[in-house]
């Protein structure tokens, strides 16, 4: 928010009653929005740390009651969590690197005004944003080339997204043409121009795209579900789904006897612990990269 923008707002006291009421409503709405957003996270963390008995008596509503790390220990001791964490780490790391390399390889030629295939290739990529063969043929192709139950399936079918290429292309188009001309006069070929001029000068955009790609890789659940049936290859999101959603024997336990209810309570605590462990990496990163995020959405608004 720029300072000049706010200059039209005087101090609160000097305002008319109507304005005061209006601003009051604005503040209430914003604070309400913040509370609504935060509450689920706070509640999950509180349950994860609270005393199991307090949780089962329904005493936890906002802040933790007591302290009980048993559920954390139980989850941490479970090997499958670490296996899936490791898998997701590698899928995210290598996936994002490959995404960025391929995006550069696609965006740079498309950003060269003279490139004789520019229009055709542009359409070739853009068309995939609007029409797709759908799930079944894609499934046939991916399994047909032998990627089923291969860790590569988490990386190769999503090497590059046409939309992100368009964003990067705009960024590279905005680099001054003279720089490339100079480079050419010095005898640089296009690979050199890409690595020495285009990539360094579009670093902010690359950071944004890298972030988007990384979040998408980290959160990807569907690819794993379709193509990875071996548990030792599955990503974190699939592990989470098993714990959080499928293994809900809720209804049975609800009808069951008290010691089952106690078991249900510890399952619930375990679930909340899993949510905490899975979201912490993302929630830690987000505030730091916020300015890039905002920038990134603006990039998307630029005509592709």
């Amino acid at each position, binding site marked *: 928010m720029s300072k000049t923008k706010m200059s039209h707002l005087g101090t609160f006291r000097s305002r008319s009653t109507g304005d005061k009421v209006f601003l009051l409503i604005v503040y209430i709405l914003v604070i309400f929005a913040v509370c609504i957003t935060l509450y689920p996270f706070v509640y999950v963390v509180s349950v994860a740390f609270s005393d199991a008995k307090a949780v089962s008596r329904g005493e936890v509503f906002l802040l933790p009651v007591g302290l009980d790390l048993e559920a954390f220990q139980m989850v941490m001791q479970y090997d499958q969590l670490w296996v899936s964490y490791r898998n997701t780490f590698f899928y995210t790391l290598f996936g994002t690197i490959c995404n960025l390399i391929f995006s550069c390889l696609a965006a740079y*030629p498309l950003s060269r005004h003279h490139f004789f295939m520019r229009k055709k290739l542009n359409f070739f990529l853009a068309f995939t944003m609007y029409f797709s063969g759908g799930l079944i043929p894609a499934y046939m192709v991916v399994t047909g080339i032998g990627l089923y139950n291969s860790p590569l399936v988490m990386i190769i079918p999503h090497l590059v997204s046409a939309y992100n290429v368009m964003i990067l292309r705009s960024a590279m188009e905005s680099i001054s043409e003279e720089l490339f001309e100079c480079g050419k006069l010095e005898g640089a070929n296009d690979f050199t121009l890409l690595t020495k001029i285009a990539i360094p000068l579009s670093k902010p955009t690359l950071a944004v795209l890298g972030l988007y790609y990384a979040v998408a890789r980290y959160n990807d659940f569907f690819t794993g579900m379709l193509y990875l049936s071996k548990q030792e290859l599955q990503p974190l999101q699939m592990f989470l789904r098993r714990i959080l959603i499928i293994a809900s024997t809720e209804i049975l336990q609800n009808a069951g006897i008290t010691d089952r209810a106690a078991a249900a309570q510890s399952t619930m605590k375990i679930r909340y612990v899993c949510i905490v462990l899975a979201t912490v990496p993302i929630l830690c990163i987000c505030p730091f990269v916020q300015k890039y995020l905002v920038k990134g959405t603006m990039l998307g608004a630029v005509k592709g």
Partner: protein
Amino acid sequence: MNDLVTQKGIVIMTKKGKNGHAVLSKDEKKRLRRKVWNRDKYLVYMMIPVIIYFLIFNYLPMGGLVMAFQKFKPGKGFVGIFTGEWVGLKWFRRFFKSAYAWRLIRNTFLLNFYSLIFGFPIPIIFAICITQIKNKFLQKGAQVITYLPYFISTVVVVGMMTNFLSPSSGIINQLIQKFGGEPINFMSEQDWFRPLYVISGSWQSFGFNSIIFVAAIMGISPDLYEAMTVDGANIRQTVWHLTLPMIRPTIVLLLIMSLGNMLNVGFEKVFLMYNEAVYETADVISTYVYRQGIASTNYSYAAAVGLFNSVVGFALVSIANRVSRKLNETAIW
């Protein structure tokens, strides 16, 4: 008379024809093409891996849509998609005659429709509010916090929802019981599916979706506000008569784009949220394709249903794009 002409960014020597336009002889055209190739060949080399990727993972599946008109026979690798027996429109007829067709189209449409009605105004209202906040700390903080849910995975969002709403131990039902109500099994009640889908979707994306409106509002010249305030307008009037009209193009563009996506519903979320008890309101085209194709291996039938979805989706996006081009002169492609 010889002259220098520039074609495709290459300067070559040639004769000028009538009206001063260059007419290239066969030989000169060849020379031009070679020069262009020599200049651009590295760009082509660079694109080759990208082209191969798009051919295999985007265009090959599109070609594979022929299986929608065939009776699929498993072959070696993906060759199977091209070797089936031709059956024409059999699968499409079967789909439209089945009881599912109407239910799936209705559910897909309604989930999007309600998400739009409920979810579209919230980011706009939030953006207007947040730009009125003078306290910088509160403003920035509120923005950072409300963006957060957008980056949480669908699995976690649905997981939180399932557990909060659980009839035995969920916090919502604990509250209901505290006030003397009967616990509700939200996740397996048909009537609750749509509200839950829409509300959770809105919770997850309203902050992030407001970014673009915040930027549009920030782009309005402060002088205009100054002028209105000097003329005695109060805040409500500046919002109504200045802010809203100024961000109208952005609103219209985004609205048209979401109308174009009316038949694309996020598969993951429905898939993670639904169960057999709520198929009546929850089952959408993409989840049906998944069940028919991957789970029951009716590949050709599922491909046909998927093709129907892709074609209608493509038509909607094309119309939306044409309309937005007319209205805003800013097209998506």
